């Protein structure tokens, strides 16, 4: 089946089986390996991407459902989003497997003008498991990125 979507701002069109996981199409067909596979069953959030601005786990999305959608993967952030920088300065990443998913899941909180509470940050990242950091550094990174993004 022919599937069309916008990937990190660029229109893409590809011919593939409609039930392939969006995760596999991104990594294998589009060569974007920043999206990681953790559990493959929707529990860990490592494969989080944004579909029309909303975080989803790409291991549970048939590529057919991406038809006509705007997709954003970690590559689309270009490395200079405030959250990408603060994840480094606050040491919110260790092994790095969960990091692309964490950044995309928290991006909306960082970009919104309203300052998130710690409780809100924890809730937004409840679907992203990290086995290294214990989460505290990740939460600090999100709050620091918000402060930087909205500094007067």
């Amino acid at each position, binding site marked *: 089946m022919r599937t069309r979507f916008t990937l990190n701002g660029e229109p893409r069109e590809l011919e593939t089986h409609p039930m392939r996981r969006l995760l596999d199409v991104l990594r294998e067909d589009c060569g974007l390996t920043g999206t990681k596979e953790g559990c493959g069953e929707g529990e860990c959030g490592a494969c989080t991407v944004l579909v029309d601005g909303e975080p989803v786990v790409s291991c549970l999305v048939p590529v057919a459902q991406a038809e006509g959608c705007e997709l954003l993967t970690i590559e689309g952030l270009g490395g200079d989003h405030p959250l990408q920088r603060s994840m480094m300065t606050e040491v919110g990443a260790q092994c790095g497997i969960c990091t692309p998913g964490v950044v995309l899941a928290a991006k909306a909180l960082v970009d919104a003008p309203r300052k998130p509470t710690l409780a809100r940050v924890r809730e937004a990242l409840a*679907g992203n498991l990290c086995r290294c950091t214990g989460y505290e550094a990740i939460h600090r990174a999100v709050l620091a990125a918000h402060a930087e993004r909205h500094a007067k």
Partner: protein
Amino acid sequence: MRTSSRDFTLRRARTLDGALAVLRDDPGTVPLAGCTDVYVALQFGQRPGSRYLDLTPLKALRRITERDGNLVIGALATYTDLQRSRLVRSRLPMLVEASRLVGGMQIQNRGTVGGNLANGSPAGDTLPVFAAAEAQVVLQSTQGERRVPFTSFYTGYRASVRRPDELITAVEVPAVDARQWFRKVGTRAAQAISKVVFAGVRASTPRLALGSVGPTVVRLSRTERVLGSGGSLETAIDELKLEISPIDDLRSTADYRREVAANLVREFWARTA
């Protein structure tokens, strides 16, 4: 995923009538939407079916409206839609609470009400809410439409009265004119399948429902009768423990579930007093 997608076919529904015709002509077709159950099953090497019908293009089924005094929730409404809906927030806050606790936000953005009903897990987070709210399930086929009271929808473990040619198109919830309370007990605050899940409405005869304590979600009709006729809370709890049939499984033990169920009814009673 472990199962090769080449073994499967997926059609995308373009109209509701078209989808119903597919189910009539090939009742073995498995409808899918958010895929938060179907794709997990495929990952585990199970095959819920080999021919699938993607309902997500049917945008009209995602609406949440009010009709004839009922809250009408389209089957494709996601858990995120439920949390954002003013109608759901004002009329059925216990459903908002249940939706907040379904997985993480990535799952809430995809999983649907119709999918939670169709999957029919005894641990389904929204199911006790619909049981306590006396909802009706709207089923459509090429033969027409019928409504089934939610409390008669399930016939056993993951089994329901839905015929293979029928599609769940909506859930209708009448006005709830008493205090509502929802609580899910799991291993952590989010992203956990429940050990016990409870919803209750403090009407003159209270309505209580529990998930994960039997093969299907259950209304506690005997416990309700004790409470409604002025019996003491502890008499009601004794009745509750006879009324439910929890099991030992990988998530919990029957004894633990029985005790937690009793505590949930006590907490409901105190908080809605």
